[in-house]
């Protein structure tokens, strides 16, 4: 079967978190010539994101053309009403089995059913990969070898606070004997030796010897962790931050080895072998730009940026491999680099050498898009889009603390406080608590019959409480500036519909630009204050829990579309329409094809 474009592919290039306001400014200034060319050939418009503007939610709506009430993903986290504990929304990992939680049929399944070949390259939430008529390399969701979304380590002789994954080491003459911790309590011996002139470090582990100069990255290094009869195969990279005055050696998260992964991450699974043959060892972790390592001080900004741009290069390699070898009718290639670099640098106003980091990232992305456009030829349809935009994050809001101060969340009296101090919900008296916040955007009512210790009656009491909280929280002001903090508080029935709606919170909070739900709120923390400055070292901008209208994404196409009022939910029917595939009933968006 040939595509409606005479065999030329429809290509979607995604730049996660690419912000409409920045893109428009830099396109007008001439910094993004390839995007400007696409815009002049077809058009450009802001793309409405989802509520909340969180990537798992947004990319699920992109894939299915459904609202969260029907695809079931409402954020990174949701709560278990039986335990009040946070649960991961995208995927469950158990003993080598990965179960994705997104409901609904992605549009590429309808495309494939018509005989068109598809290539999905690191599209978020395609882990675990499902069979398609084509190939899949999974994106966001794939864990590292420690079953986390990225756990790095720092080996250092610099005195500092003891904490997990900061490995304090000491020179013994010119060498250090230490270890790399692996899964299941396993470990690998690691020997470090400095050269007599102290200008290089030799890293020895499992027969591999690497020599690095300061500010140099290693290549991918295979590792095999063994405990009893179990083996875990991974790959890692080292980055030598410094040798003097202190050794500081970064060890990346240990990615699952592409040839021996614990969880298949490609479809077909043999694709991983093909790609290694073509490209060499490559990263498999879904969140490979190590923002967490940067925040923990394991990595510096130079190293972080090199790692991020390496990921963009890898994305280009796999994209061109697929174009040349798979002849896809539909190719979707998503890079996360645009999101990661914006998180770190967009909200900073230091006037230093990093002030242009986000612009440089957008320019590199623009150049990547330009090379893709050249490769696919002038007759092909090219769409460039993002799932949401960005806003500076100068304050965070402890939503549970506001609920406490407002009388909705109740703590035990000090004499009755439990001696058991877990990380979640310290001292919350569930029998008297009427509402609680968890995740980045949701407030839940402690509803009788649904929550294990629910105390709010369904019906009128529930509805009155939701409306009262929405009205009062909307009035919250920054105690320092007097600014209004909250844009909107929406009842779930106002924005969602469908069989999965019970996975949602009862209220969805949307803050004004500059404010975001705190990390502590996300896991049930109840700190003292309500609105506090953002103290993170390397996380200066965000989009989660920001009013979706204030963080729109972008949509470019080299063919005319109805760009006005376009939303992520419209992409699925639009792509089907462009490919001449009939749009199935039940999709909620509209085709943007004129």
């Amino acid at each position, binding site marked *: 079967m040939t595509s409606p474009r005479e065999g030329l592919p429809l290509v979607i290039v995604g730049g996660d978190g690419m912000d409409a306001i920045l893109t428009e400014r830099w396109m007008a200034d001439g910094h993004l010539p390839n995007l400007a060319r696409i815009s002049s050939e077809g058009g450009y418009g802001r793309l409405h994101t989802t509520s909340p503007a969180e990537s798992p939610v947004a990319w699920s709506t992109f894939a299915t053309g459904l609202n969260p009430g029907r695809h079931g993903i409402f954020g*990174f*986290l949701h709560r278990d009403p039986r335990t009040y*504990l*946070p*649960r*991961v929304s995208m995927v*469950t*990992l*158990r003993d080598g089995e990965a179960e994705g939680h997104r409901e609904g049929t992605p549009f590429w399944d309808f495309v494939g059913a018509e005989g068109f070949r598809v290539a999905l390259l690191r599209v978020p939430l395609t882990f675990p990969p499902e069979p398609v008529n084509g190939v899949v390399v999974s994106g966001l969701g794939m*864990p590292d070898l*420690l*079953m*986390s*979304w*990225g*756990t790095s380590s720092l080996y250092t002789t610099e005195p500092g*606070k003891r*904490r*997990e994954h900061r490995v304090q080491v000491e020179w013994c003459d010119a060498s250090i004997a230490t270890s790399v911790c692996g899964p299941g309590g396993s470990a690998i011996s690691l020997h470090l030796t400095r050269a007599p002139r102290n200008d290089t470090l030799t890293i020895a582990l499992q027969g591999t010897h690497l020599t690095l100069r300061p500010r140099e990255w290693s290549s991918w290094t295979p590792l095999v962790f063994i405990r009893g009869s179990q083996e875990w195969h991974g790959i890692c990279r080292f980055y030598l931050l410094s040798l003097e005055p202190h050794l500081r050696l970064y060890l990346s998260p240990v990615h699952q080895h592409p040839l021996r992964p614990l969880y298949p991450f490609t479809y077909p699974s043999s694709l991983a072998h093909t790609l290694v043959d073509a490209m060499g060892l490559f990263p498999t972790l879904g*969140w490979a730009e190590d*923002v*967490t390592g940067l*925040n*923990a*001080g394991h990595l510096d900004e130079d190293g972080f940026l090199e790692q991020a741009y390496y990921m963009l290069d890898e994305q280009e390699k796999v994209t061109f491999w697929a174009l040349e070898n798979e002849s896809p009718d539909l190719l979707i290639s998503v890079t996360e680099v645009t999101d990661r670099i914006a*998180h770190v640098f967009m909200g900073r106003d230091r006037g230093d050498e990093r002030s242009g980091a986000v612009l440089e990232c957008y320019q590199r992305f623009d150049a990547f898009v330009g090379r893709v456009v050249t490769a696919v030829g002038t007759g092909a349809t090219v769409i460039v889009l993002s799932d949401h935009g960005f806003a500076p994050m100068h304050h965070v809001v402890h939503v549970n603390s506001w609920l406490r101060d407002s009388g909705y969340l109740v703590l035990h009296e000090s004499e009755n406080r439990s001696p058991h101090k877990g*990380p979640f919900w310290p001292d919350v008296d569930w029998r008297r608590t009427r509402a609680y916040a968890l995740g*980045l955007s949701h407030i839940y009512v402690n509803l009788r019959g649904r929550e294990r210790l629910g105390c709010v009656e369904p019906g009128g009491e529930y509805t009155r409480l939701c409306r009262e909280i929405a009205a009062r929280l909307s009035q919250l002001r920054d105690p320092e500036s007097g600014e209004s903090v909250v844009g909107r508080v929406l009842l779930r029935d106002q924005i969602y519909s469908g069989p999965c709606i019970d996975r949602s919170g009862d209220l969805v909070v949307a803050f004004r630009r500059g404010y975001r739900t705190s*990390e*502590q709120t*996300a*896991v049930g923390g109840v*700190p003292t204050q309500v609105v506090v400055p953002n*103290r*993170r*070292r390397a*996380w200066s901008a*965000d989009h*989660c829990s920001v009013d979706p209208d204030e963080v729109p994404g972008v949509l470019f196409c080299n063919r005319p579309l109805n760009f006005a009022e376009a939303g992520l939910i419209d992409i699925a029917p639009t792509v089907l329409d462009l490919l001449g595939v009939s749009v199935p009933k039940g999709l909620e968006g509209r085709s943007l094809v004129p």
Partner: protein
Amino acid sequence: MPSKYTTISIPKALYSKVDGLIEGTGFRSPTEYIVYLVRQAVIAIEADQRLIYSIPYVGLPPDEEEEE
């Protein structure tokens, strides 16, 4: 030497129900089955917590936790 075990209380009716359920399963006692179930639940919760704290939007570096 302190014992490796401790005692927890569960309702007698539930214990009896478990006793009936394990017939033919290879579990030698309700206690053995309950310990198995709790271990599975703990593994599942720990796996989730590992993922949760590695979400960059959620996890805090320890220094910042201490400041709070």
